[in-house]
């Protein structure tokens, strides 16, 4: 081996979202209660905890209550109780209020910033003795034989040409008895684990959505803290799954976002432009007209639910959170399940490590998870998302029947297909003429990305790797009119033409990437692979 530095811990956690932080906290709580020495190290690729976190969010505090029964007196930043639920169906010019489906009732929940909650969880974790290292992404798996023995952090100072610069610093090996992968939706190392171990062999393909979100400061009588609104329908056509969320926070803030199922078929569809158009609806526009946009970003979310849950324990490690797909789609909530899965994993790991020290499969984790409330919750919700393959109205109708008649226990289970296989050839659709942004409520992509504060060292290899350099033109452009230009919410992909020959090529503006992972999911040939960039890269989200 080379002179790579190596350090050993009992547990290494990859990712400082709600799942990773809850895992680390629970491990240390147990160790401290029993006065046991347990070293827990948490790596986070964002420059600070929360900097890469983007969510809605209406948060169900169930798992938080279990982790810190006294979370309120400890000052957790869940202060806006959800008081009013509105579920609306939009047509181009009208909005119809619909009965709120029971899964979407939010009594007892809180409207909050998940970034702020994670920062708070990070402080709690540090106080308990977790070693937290933000700004250090895990870049590679360490595997020996068939066992995960840890991860390697990213190198610094490799130039765009692949050579070391004078800033070069090697990565570091972090070895652990158990490595917890808490990378969130479409984790880059989690994906390698899926390929390396056949963890998905008995699961449906995962299906995803892209969520694009803005944070606004408004000065407006329409702003009523506690209001939770969801819309379906316009501007999406009825064969595309998706809709908006609009959450009124305290301090004159509104979180507004738009989610589009990544199984969409029309290659001309642009989730970003659908979102911008949504805000121009006569029922929505007045909310923002004299407001100020203070945040923008995007993140993919797992929508496969129950059918898509992979095996979550393997030799040397476990998967927790949205990386394993524990999001409840009809509820559009994954924070409570992410935290709970981490807590269950922590308890199982702790019990195992008390009497063993070799890297093995923690089979108690899946066993306990299956008897927890997560399993029941996801089981009942399992048919809702795939029923929208019948279209918007078919899905709504089915969901009502499944929920009210069968109470989630219908004797069948619908299945999912991989999102990247769903695009139609461009000939089947006409380009969509999106309206020009008005600069008041709707904006262009570049001024939006600026608000994500994303940044990457320019002199580094492109972190969006093409497996085959010919696919973007020969397949993506020719068959699908280069859909990456439209689904990427940060304008990373651009088709440019040579000024003399007129020949097209794909330009990748990797600096703009906001780490949403959509390209890794939707690229029709799975030719684009998202890898972690040099440490420190990525968005800096304020309380998103």
């Amino acid at each position, binding site marked *: 081996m080379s002179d790579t530095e190596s350090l050993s811990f009992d547990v290494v956690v990859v990712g400082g979202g709600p799942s990773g932080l809850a895992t680390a906290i629970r491990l240390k709580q147990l160790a401290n209660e029993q006065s046991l020495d347990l070293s827990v190290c948490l790596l986070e690729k964002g420059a600070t905890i*929360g900097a890469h976190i983007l969510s809605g969010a209406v948060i169900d505090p169930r798992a938080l209550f279990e982790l810190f029964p006294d979370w309120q007196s400890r000052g957790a930043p869940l202060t806006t109780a959800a008081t009013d639920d509105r579920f609306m169906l939009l047509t181009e010019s009208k909005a119809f209020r619909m009965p709120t489906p029971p899964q979407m009732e939010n009594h007892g929940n809180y409207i909050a910033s998940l970034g702020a909650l994670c920062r708070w969880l990070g402080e709690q974790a540090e106080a308990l003795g977790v070693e937290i290292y933000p700004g250090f992404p895990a870049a590679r798996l360490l595997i020996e034989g068939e066992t995960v023995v840890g991860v390697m952090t990213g190198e610094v100072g490799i130039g765009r040409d692949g050579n070391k610069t004078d*800033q070069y610093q090697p990565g570091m090996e972090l070895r652990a008895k158990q490595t917890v992968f808490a990378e969130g939706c479409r984790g880059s190392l989690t994906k390698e684990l899926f390929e390396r171990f056949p963890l998905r062999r008995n699961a449906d393909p995962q299906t995803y959505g892209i969520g694009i979100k803005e944070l606004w400061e408004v000065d407006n009588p329409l702003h009523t803290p506690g209001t939770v609104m969801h819309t379906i329908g316009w501007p999406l056509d009825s064969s595309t799954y998706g809709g908006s969320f609009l959450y009124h926070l305290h301090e004159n803030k509104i979180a507004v976002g738009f989610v589009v199922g990544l199984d969409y078929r029309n290659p001309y569809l642009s989730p970003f432009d659908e979102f911008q158009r949504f805000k121009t609806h006569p029922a929505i526009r007045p909310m923002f007209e004299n407001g100020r*946009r*203070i*945040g923008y970003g995007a993140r993919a979310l797992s929508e496969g639910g129950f059918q898509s849950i992979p095996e979550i324990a393997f030799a040397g490690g476990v998967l927790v959170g949205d990386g394993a797909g524990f999001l409840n789609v009809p509820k559009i909530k994954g924070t409570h399940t992410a935290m709970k899965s981490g807590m269950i994993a922590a308890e199982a790991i702790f019990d195992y490590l008390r009497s063993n020290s070799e890297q093995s499969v923690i089979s108690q984790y899946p066993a306990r998870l299956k008897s927890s409330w997560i399993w029941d919750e996801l089981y009942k919700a399992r048919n809702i998302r795939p029923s929208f393959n019948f279209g918007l109205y078919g899905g709504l109708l089915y969901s009502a029947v499944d929920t009210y008649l069968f109470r989630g226990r219908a004797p069948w289970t619908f299945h999912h297909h991989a999102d990247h296989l769903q695009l139609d050839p461009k000939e089947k659709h006409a380009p969509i003429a999106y309206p020009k942004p008005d600069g008041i409520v709707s904006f262009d992509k570049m001024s939006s990305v600026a*608000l994500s*504060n994303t940044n990457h060292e320019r002199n580094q290899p492109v972190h969006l790797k093409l497996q085959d350099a010919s696919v973007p033109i020969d397949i993506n452009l020719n068959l699908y009119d280069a859909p990456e230009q439209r689904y990427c919410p940060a304008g990373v992909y651009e088709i440019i033409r040579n000024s003399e020959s007129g020949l097209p090529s794909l330009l990748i503006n990797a600096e703009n990437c906001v780490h949403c992972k959509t390209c890794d999911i939707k690229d029709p040939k799975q030719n684009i692979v998202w890898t972690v960039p040099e440490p*420190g890269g990525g968005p*800096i989200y304020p*309380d998103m």
Partner: protein
Amino acid sequence: MHIVVCVKQVHDPEVAPALFTINEATNAVVSVAGLAQVISPYDEQAIEAALRMKDKKPDTKITVLTIGAASAREVLKHALSMGADEAILVNISAGVLLDSYATAKFLHEAVNKIGSFDLILAGRQSADLDAGVVGNGLAELLHIPAITFAKRIEVVESKVVVDRVVDNGSEKIETTLPALITVSNEIGAARKPNLRETMRASRKPTQSWTQADLSKEPMEATEELIKLFIPKKEKHCEFLAGTSAAEQASLLVRKLRDARLI
């Protein structure tokens, strides 16, 4: 050798301007909630300059010093993670605005309390107020030579040789130690914190002093900030009447004259 590096915590200059507003009552810049403040980039480069000297002479000790609210511990942690050895926070309440003179006086008291040093480094100016006065003020109070805008620093026995950025190039200046040097961006990129140092950072000595630890006199600002504001930019667009190019051109000339632009 003992190098003291003065650093300041500022609003992240890389963050979109739309995320900041000005509180007119307190004349303070306010960022939207949830944004972390950072070390002023020139100060980060001053740490880099110190670390390069330490790379050459490993027995060099680097102490980072900041005056700030409790949140400024984060910039000290950053400096220690880059490789500095010790850190001192002079803790003042959040929201206290010190002017350049008060800051220099405060740093002077702190440096006196630190005791011995060979070299003091600071950024050429802070990234928020851009005044560039504190370093020189501190040198004056300490009665030591100051060299500004360094792009290269070399210590040779009891002397220091500095390449200093000037308008059309650079000049070489030599002085005796102890001295104060302000560092310019031409020195080159600061290194990233590495994991090994970051892991050690929490165990490195860090002290927190209050004003009472330094002096009995209150540190009062001698300057008053009267108004901090974001200039309003207005745009108007007017289409010139007229049917021919010649007619439009003469209308344009008249407009520009009326506006006293030509």
